[in-house]
Every structure is written in structure tokens, then in C-alpha cells.
């Protein structure tokens, strides 16, 4: 929520109500008691909403750029490289989700050539619906996950980035490289409160035909959600559980903390 709100904070309030109001406002990111111009918004509210929407739309439309988003140092250190799904443009990606779940022959060859197979942990980065989430979240998170995995004594594959990526690409990665656990760090659909929400979708030996039922998710990795250190710990703990149980998805304990039914935020799978 925004810094400069339009509300009548100057209006005289009974002391108790004012105190209660301030305490309650701090408990929600919702835009409350903003005042009105007739039956419409004050100009400040109107412009804040436009600004936050602009950030969200830009996050969806911006193309991922490895060096700009992650920095040359991280790209070099992790030997990051990029592949693309069958979607050829952002517009096609948005309209035809199934294209974002498959690689073409070129991408398959690049992955096979450059990544070792049969590792314990394979990490991939997907732009998903927010390149901004990836740019903001990955640089801190990726080294923590790689270092932590190595401390567990796991073999870690070479990380790559996927343009126009949907969650279902996990299955293709599993088919190509046969790792034990795959972690996909992917940008979620941006809202107005944050456009930078990253998720980690994880699966044990994913292969064709697997669905969300075989996957686990750690969502809301962003500044006002789960910080990188905590996210890395949860990813590593979940990977260890998967390796031990030799399965993933509904059978594994760390699950979504509950999903809203009714209007259910559709994730980018």
C-alpha cells in the first residue's frame, strides 16, 4: 500500500476511535478510509491505483534478462544459461498456457548438452507471470539453496532459466535430466500489493503426466512475505523430505497452508 494516501487523516476524530482506527489500519494492506470525491476516488487514490496497476502490468509484460536481472557475477558463478518453451512471445504465452509447459528440440538439446543428468537437486528459474518477482527474489535465494544443498552432500545440477515458463515444465525437466528433486523458482501473477511474489514449485522425479497433486509449493516469497533465508530453509527441508519419502505432492507434509475456495487464486500452472 502506498505512502501518500489521500485520506482525511486530519479530520478530528474521537481519541479512542482514532487510536483504534490506526491500530486496525496497520493490520491490513487493504486501502481503507480513503475518502471520496463525490462517488469516486480522490485524485491521490486514483493515481496510486494507476501506479500499482502499472507496476503489476509491467511485471507481467517485462521480458526476463539474465544479466540485467541477476547480475553478471551470479550468471558466471552459477553458469546460468537460458532456454525457451514452445511459446514464441509473451502474448502467445499468456493465451496458450500449454505451450509454456513444453520445450522444443533446440531447448531440449541445450539442456541435455549443458546439464549433468541424475543429480540429487536440479534448480530451474522460470519467468512465469512476473519477471520482476524473479529479478527481485532469485539473486538472494539461489545461492542459499545451492550452498545448502551442497552442505547436505547432494549433487546439484546446473541451473538454467526458462523464458515463457509454466509450472508443468517440471515434467519435461524430469524427463530430460532424471534428477531426484526439481525446484522451479517462478514468478507468480502480480497483484497490486506486490508484483514481486516468487514461488518454489517442487517435485520428486517429475515425469510426463504428473499434475499439481504430485507437486509441493512454497509461495509468497517476497519482501512482505517469506524472506529468502526462510524460503531456502523450507525448500531444502522439503527436498530432504521428498528424497526420504521418495515421493512428492499430497503425500508430503509441508503443503499449502490452505487454499481459498470460491474465487481461488489461479496459479500459473
Amino acid at each position, binding site marked *: 500500500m502506498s505512502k501518500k494516501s489521500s*485520506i*482525511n*487523516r486530519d*479530520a*478530528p*476524530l*474521537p481519541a*479512542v*476511535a482514532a487510536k*483504534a*482506527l490506526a*491500530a*486496525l*489500519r496497520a*493490520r*491490513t*494492506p*487493504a*486501502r*481503507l*478510509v*480513503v*475518502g*471520496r470525491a*463525490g*462517488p*469516486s*476516488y480522490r485524485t491521490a*487514490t486514483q493515481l496510486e*491505483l*494507476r501506479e*500499482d*496497476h502499472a507496476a*503489476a*502490468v509491467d*511485471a*507481467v509484460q517485462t521480458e526476463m534478462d539474465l544479466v540485467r536481472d541477476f547480475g553478471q557475477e551470479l550468471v558466471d558463478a552459477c553458469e546460468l544459461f537460458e532456454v525457451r518453451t514452445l511459446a514464441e512471445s509473451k502474448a502467445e504465452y*499468456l*493465451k*496458450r*498456457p*500449454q505451450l509454456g509447459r513444453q520445450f522444443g528440440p533446440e531447448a531440449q538439446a541445450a539442456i541435455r548438452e549443458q546439464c549433468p543428468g541424475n543429480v540429487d537437486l536440479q534448480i530451474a528459474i522460470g519467468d512465469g*507471470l512476473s519477471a520482476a518477482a524473479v529479478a527481485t527474489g532469485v539473486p538472494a535465494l539461489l545461492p542459499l539453496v545451492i550452498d545448502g544443498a551442497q552442505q547436505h552432500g547432494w549433487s546439484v545440477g546446473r541451473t538454467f532459466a526458462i523464458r515463457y515458463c509454466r509450472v508443468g515444465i517440471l515434467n519435461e525437466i524430469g524427463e530430460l535430466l532424471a534428477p531426484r528433486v526439481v525446484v522451479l523458482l517462478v514468478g507468480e*501473477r*502480480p*497483484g*497490486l*500489493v506486490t*508484483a514481486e511474489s516468487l514461488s518454489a514449485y517442487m517435485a520428486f522425479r517429475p515425469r510426463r503426466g504428473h499434475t499439481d497433486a504430485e507437486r509441493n509449493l512454497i509461495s509468497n516469497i517476497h519482501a512482505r512475505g517469506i524472506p529468502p533465508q526462510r524460503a531456502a530453509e523450507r525448500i531444502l527441508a522439503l527436498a530432504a523430505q521428498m528424497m526420504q519419502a521418495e515421493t512428492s505432492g499430497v503425500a508430503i507434509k509441508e503443503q499449502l*497452508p*490452505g*487454499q*481459498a*475456495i*470460491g*474465487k*481461488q*487464486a*489461479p496459479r500459473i500452472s
Partner: protein
Amino acid sequence: MPYQSTVRGERFAFADLRELLAKANEEKSGDELAEIAAASQRERVAAKRALAEVTLAEILANPVIDPDNDEVSRLIVDSHDAAAFAELANLTVGEFREWLLDDATDEAKLHDVRWAITPEMAAAAAKLMSNKDLVLVAAKIRNVTRLRNTLGQRCVLAIRLQPNHPADDLGGILLSAVDGLLYGTGDAVIGVNPAIESVDTVASILHALDRLIGVSGAPTQHCCLAHITTQLAALERGAPIDLLFQSVAGTEAANASFGISLATLREGRERVLEHHQRRDVAWVGQNVMYFETGQGSALSADAHQGVDQLTCEARAYAVARAFDPLLVNTVVGFIGPEYLLDERQITRAGLEDHFMGKLLGLPMGCDVCYTNHAAADQNSVENLLVLLTAAGCNYFMGVPCGDDVMLSYQSTSYHDGAAMRKLFGLSPAPEFLAWLEQRGIFADGQLSLAEPASHPLLGQLESVLADSSAN
């Protein structure tokens, strides 16, 4: 039976009614995703021309999904009013469209034939109608429902307050709700989508909303939009339920993917009706169900069975109307661009859904909304809001500044509801309006409160909260 028609010398054939209905649909990315859409604009028009010649009797005789395999199809067949259908049976879809638009076909007439019209007939008519046609016919029909207040009358526009919170914080939810009440919204329902689908969470939200209604005296109903089984489990533990919510879809398989069947809905409704008899509330009616729907939901569950998303949506209304709901709304832009690509498709779908729901007898509202990866923005929402208000839509959503901080999508705001009431001279539900005037929020039928931040209702929040956390 195969259908065919010729457009500009080019002949198009359609294998069966299901294919014909799909190809006659206006352009929707979801039908393209399902690979059932017309391949060209010429084919689309050819399908419309062929559909215009099909009689309603033929539609009735050819279910798009076999009733032997689908309980929604069986419901449609079993609830059909054959007597009232007599005068419509021989109309073609093209003639039916004109009959609907005819000035002689008034509200009473449309009311008499609502159970003679099947969802597939409503969908077929929608496919031949322009956006303005959809507004014109819907505007004839008012479907009035009652629970703690009376909704849907001519000149009434209600708003559902949707005070969601990303972590279900009761203080945040209640402050959002009070803020909305101070704009005159919340007469349709104060309805919270929980972030966490647990019985404890749902029960605590229901208790808090019930207390808010008790303390404020606002004549409206509350709802926590969890899965039906979670709500009933909360009821079992003593939580008060005004309205029982469920998302519904137009095929048995899609409903199964939601974890429900018609039996689930029937049993739930009966339990809530019984629960209401035990509560000390001045009910003014017995419409105890609330349903949400939306084009594309069957396809997203891979349960559309080759039926286009408009026809599937109409069938969801057959499910809804079997349970006398207080509220039904399509959530029109929520599902994403793979089903409704952009503002144009969202607008069209909103008008179609509202028209079909009204025609089938439902108290139709609309969550006019969009997600940030669709080619739409707040202006898109405002445009459809005006169109649907002109069409006589029962209610819209009231979300703080239109920004749902839990579901990460944009809908309509408290301000938007106030604006539509002003623009079209509409009022809140009458019982609710009387309360608003008594509490100094409205005067002479209009929103009059200038300084919501100093209204005593905010001061009462602390006591509601203290009770809620003690619960």
C-alpha cells in the same frame, strides 16, 4: 444430426448440436484452448445462421451431454416445464431471440416460461444476440430474493461487501467491512473469502461477521466462502451460517472436481434451513444459498466434455436455480486470459452470463473483475459495470478500492457501487436503506456521510473485536 449453412458461397457443416453451439459462440480464448471454436469469422457466422434455424424442441431433444452420464443433464430434463414449453417448442432460435426482445413479451410472461427454457436454449439465444440485446432482455426481468433483507427489486442495486484479508486477520476484515458499510455497501452480503481453508478459521470469521451484524444492527447477511463441507463443519461446531456458499459448474465432472454433487448441495441447504429455525434472527425469507460461477471453470477442470464455455456456464445456472439461491454471480474476469482474453471478451461474457442467469430465473449479480495478466484495466471494469447496471444486475462486489489484497485481482469498489446507484437512481435493499438513514450514512435515499473516519460505527469495532478474539 448434421447441420449446415452457406456463407458467401462457402458451405460449412457441423456434426451435431454441441459443435454447432460451440462454433456459434462469440470469440473466446477458452473455446480456442479447447479446440472447439470456429476456425474463421465466416464459419462463426455460418454456425449462427444454422443455429438460428434450429427449433427449441430440437434443442430439448438433443442434450449436449448425455443424461445417462451426467446428473446436471438429468436435472435439466427432470425440471423442465413441458406445459409452459408448449408455446415455445416450435420457435426456432432466431424466432426465440425476437420473441424475447418483443415489447409484448413482458416480465410476467418471461417469469411464466423460466422453467420451460433450458440452459442450452438460453445459451443458443445469447449466441445470436448483440451486447445491447443482452442488456435489453435482461433489463425486463427482476428476480427478487429474501433472507435478512429483500434483494433484486426494480430500482434496487445491492453490493456484496468483500472484506478479504491475506491472513484472515479479523481486525483487518472487520475494519474493511465497516468501511464498506459506511459507503452503503454490504446489503447483498458481507462475504469473506478465507485465505486459509480450515474449520477454525471459517468459524472465527463467521462469529466475527455475525457479531458485527448484531452490534451494528445492519439488516444483511454474512457468509464465509469456504468449501461447503468446511462451512458445514463450522456449523457443526456452533458457528452461525446465514448463507451457504459454493462454486458450481455446468457438468457433473466439473462439480466433482470442486468436491461436490447435487446431493451435497441439497443436504447442505436442508441443514442450513434447519439451523435457521433454531436461531433468533428475524428472517424475511428462506433463500439460503449463494453460488459463484464463471465461464471456463469446466474447461479448467478438463470436464467440459466438448461443450463450449458459454453453454457450460448456462448449465451451471441450472444447478444454481434448483436450490433457490439468494445470490448468484459470475466471476467474469477472474479466470485469466486463456479463457477470456481481454476486455472485449470479458465484457461480452459478463453480459451473456447476466442475461442467461436472469432468463433462467436467477438473482443474478456479477463480480466484474480482471487479473493483471489479462488485457484489461479499471476502465474495462467501469465500462462493464455501467452496462450491467443498465441491464438491471442485482448486485456487484464492493472491495476496498477494487483491490482484493488476498486474491490478487481487481474488482469493483465501494465507490463504484455508490457511483452506479447515483448514476442510475438506484437504492440499496429497502431494509438496509432504512438502517443507513437511521445511522446517518444516507439521507434522502443518498449517500450523505462526509467523514466516515469519525462515524461511531468505527468506535464500536473494538467491542466486536474483543468479543471475537474471546470466542
